[in-house]
C-alpha cells in the first residue's frame, strides 16, 4: 500500500512536470496566434498576421536559410572528420588512447561559454569571427567529438571477421571501406547526422558568441528579440518562437525515427567489477 502511494506520488510529479512544460510551450503557441491577450484564459481574438509580420520584419527567410545551411554544413563536415577517427578508436589499441578519448570528450563536457569566449576572441583575431564560415567552424568543435562518440559503438558492433573475410576474398582497403564498412554504418551515420542537425539548430552559446549580423541562426535571432522584449510586439516574438519550435520539432521527429529518446543524453554505464 505504501509502495502504491509512493509510485502514485512519482507519477504525479512527472505529470506536474509535463503539464508545466505543456503550459510553457502552449503559451508561446497561443500567444503567437493572439490579436491581443491580457490576463484572460484565452485571447479574445485570434489572428495569423504575426507570422507574416515576423517573417518580414525579422528577415526570417534569410535567417532560416542561413540556419539550414550552417546545420547541414556542420553535419557533413563533422561526419567526414569523425568517421575515420571513430573507426580507429573503435578498432585499434594504442598508448594514449584514453588520453585521446578524454581530449575528444572535453568539448562536450566543458560548457560552451567557458571555451566559447577564448574561441570567439581567437576567431575575431583571424577575421573569421562573425562570418557564416566562423559559425560553422565553431559549431564543429563539439560536433566532431559528438560524431566520433556516436559512431564508435556502431563500428564496435561490426565484426572484425567481416573485414577480414572481405580481405581474404581479395578486397583492398578501399574496397573494404566502400563495400563493407560504409553500407554497414549507414544507420550510425544517419543517427549521428540527425542528432548533430538537431543539436546545431538548437545550439545557442557558441553561435551567439561567434555570429555577426549576417550569420545568426534562428535561435540567436530569437534570443535578441526576447532580450529586446517590448521593442516588438510580444506576439510577433512568439510567432518567431513557434517557427523555431516547429523546425526543431520536425527535426526531433526525424531523429526519433533513428534513436530512442534516452539515447539523447549522456549514458552512464555500470562500472564493471
Amino acid at each position: 500500500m505504501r509502495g502504491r502511494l509512493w509510485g502514485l506520488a512519482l507519477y504525479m510529479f512527472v505529470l506536474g512536470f509535463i503539464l508545466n512544460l505543456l503550459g510553457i510551450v502552449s503559451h508561446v503557441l497561443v500567444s503567437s496566434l493572439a490579436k491581443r491577450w491580457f490576463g484572460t484564459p484565452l485571447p479574445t481574438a485570434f489572428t495569423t498576421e504575426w507570422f507574416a509580420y515576423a517573417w518580414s520584419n525579422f528577415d526570417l527567410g534569410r535567417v532560416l536559410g542561413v540556419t539550414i545551411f550552417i546545420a547541414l554544413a556542420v553535419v557533413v563536415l563533422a561526419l567526414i572528420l569523425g568517421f575515420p577517427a571513430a573507426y580507429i578508436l573503435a578498432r585499434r589499441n594504442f598508448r594514449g588512447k584514453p588520453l585521446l578519448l578524454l581530449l575528444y570528450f572535453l568539448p562536450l563536457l566543458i560548457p560552451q561559454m567557458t571555451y566559447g569566449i577564448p574561441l570567439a576572441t581567437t576567431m575575431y583575431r583571424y577575421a573569421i569571427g562573425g562570418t557564416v564560415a566562423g559559425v560553422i567552424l565553431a559549431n564543429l568543435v563539439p560536433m566532431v567529438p559528438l560524431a566520433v562518440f556516436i559512431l564508435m559503438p556502431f563500428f564496435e558492433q561490426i565484426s572484425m571477421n567481416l573485414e577480414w573475410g572481405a580481405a581474404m576474398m581479395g578486397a583492398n582497403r578501399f574496397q573494404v571501406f566502400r563495400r563493407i564498412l560504409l553500407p554497414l554504418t549507414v544507420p550510425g551515420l544517419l543517427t549521428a547526422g540527425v542528432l548533430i542537425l538537431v543539436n546545431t539548430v538548437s545550439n545557442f552559446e557558441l553561435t551567439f558568441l561567434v555570429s555577426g549580423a549576417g550569420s545568426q541562426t534562428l535561435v540567436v535571432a530569437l534570443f535578441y528579440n526576447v532580450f529586446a522584449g517590448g521593442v516588438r510586439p510580444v506576439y510577433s516574438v512568439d510567432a518567431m518562437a513557434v517557427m523555431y519550435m516547429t523546425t526543431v520539432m520536425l527535426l526531433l521527429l526525424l531523429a526519433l525515427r533513428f534513436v530512442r529518446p534516452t539515447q539523447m543524453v549522456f549514458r552512464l554505464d555500470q562500472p564493471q567489477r
Partner: protein
Amino acid sequence: MRRARVGERSELDAMAMVCVLPSLLYVLVMFVYPFLYGIYMSLRPAKLLGFSLANYIVFFTDEWQYRTVWITFGIAVPNTIVVVSFALLLAYGMRRGIWLERTITTILVLPISLGVILLAEGILGFYGARGWFHQILLGLGVLKEPLVLTHNYIGVMLSLFMQQFPFCFLMLLGYVSGIDPSIENSARTLGAGPWTVFYKVMLPLMAPGIAIAFALVFVMSFGVFPSAILLGQPAGATRTIAIAAYQQAFEFYDMSYASAIAVVMGLFQLAGLLVIILLRRRMVMAATMGVGKR
C-alpha cells in the same frame, strides 16, 4: 571498448594516424589552441606591457566582479542539489520500467532539444503576472496576489530546472535500471526491507552514477548564461560569472580581461570535471542533446 595493456603492441600504424589526424588537428587547433591562447591573453592585460596577473587581481578585488562567483554558486549549488535529488528519486522509483515509457521519455526530451531560449520565452509568459499559472492559482484562491516568478532568481532556477531535470533523470534512469534486479531481489530474500535495500545495497551501487550526475549538472549550471539574462536580473541578482565574461568581451572589448574571467569560470568548473574524469572510466557517450547547454 578494448584498452591497450602494458606491453601490448601498439596498433597505431600509418593508416590509423591518417584517419585520426584530421579530427585531432581540428580539436587541437579549434579547442586546445584557443584555450591556451585565452590563458595567455588573460596574462597580458591590455593596458600593461608584458605578463601580469593584473586581470585576476582586478577581478578578485572588484566587488562588482567577484560577487558574480558567489551569485553563480548561489544558483548552481541549490539547482544541482534539487535537480539531482528529484531525478534520483524518480529514477529509483521507476527503475523497474515506466508506464508509457516511450511517451514520457519523448516528452522529457523536448525541453532538452528545444533549448533554453524558447523555454525562457514560454516561462516569461506562462509564469508571468498575467500567465496561466497565476490565472489558475488566483482563480482557485490558492494565492491572494500574484508572485513574482520571472526577472529574478526564481525565474533562473525555474528555467534551469526545466532544462536540466529531464536530462539528469534520463541519465540516472539508464544507470539505475542497469543495475541487475536480482541483486535487489537477493537482498530482499536475505531479510532486507525496501528501505534497507535502498541505503545498504542500491545506494552504494548507484554512488558513482550519482557523483557523475552531480558533477555534470554542477558544471552545466555554473556556466549559466542565457537564462540568467532572459529570466533573471542580468545587471543585479543574477549577474553570473558568464555574464561578466561576456560583458568584458563584447561590451567593453577587453578580450584580455574577458579571457581572465573565462579562465576563472573554467577553474571552478574544473573542480566538477575532475570528479567526472576520475569516475569517467565507464562513462560512455551515446548521443548528447543536452551537453554544454544550460
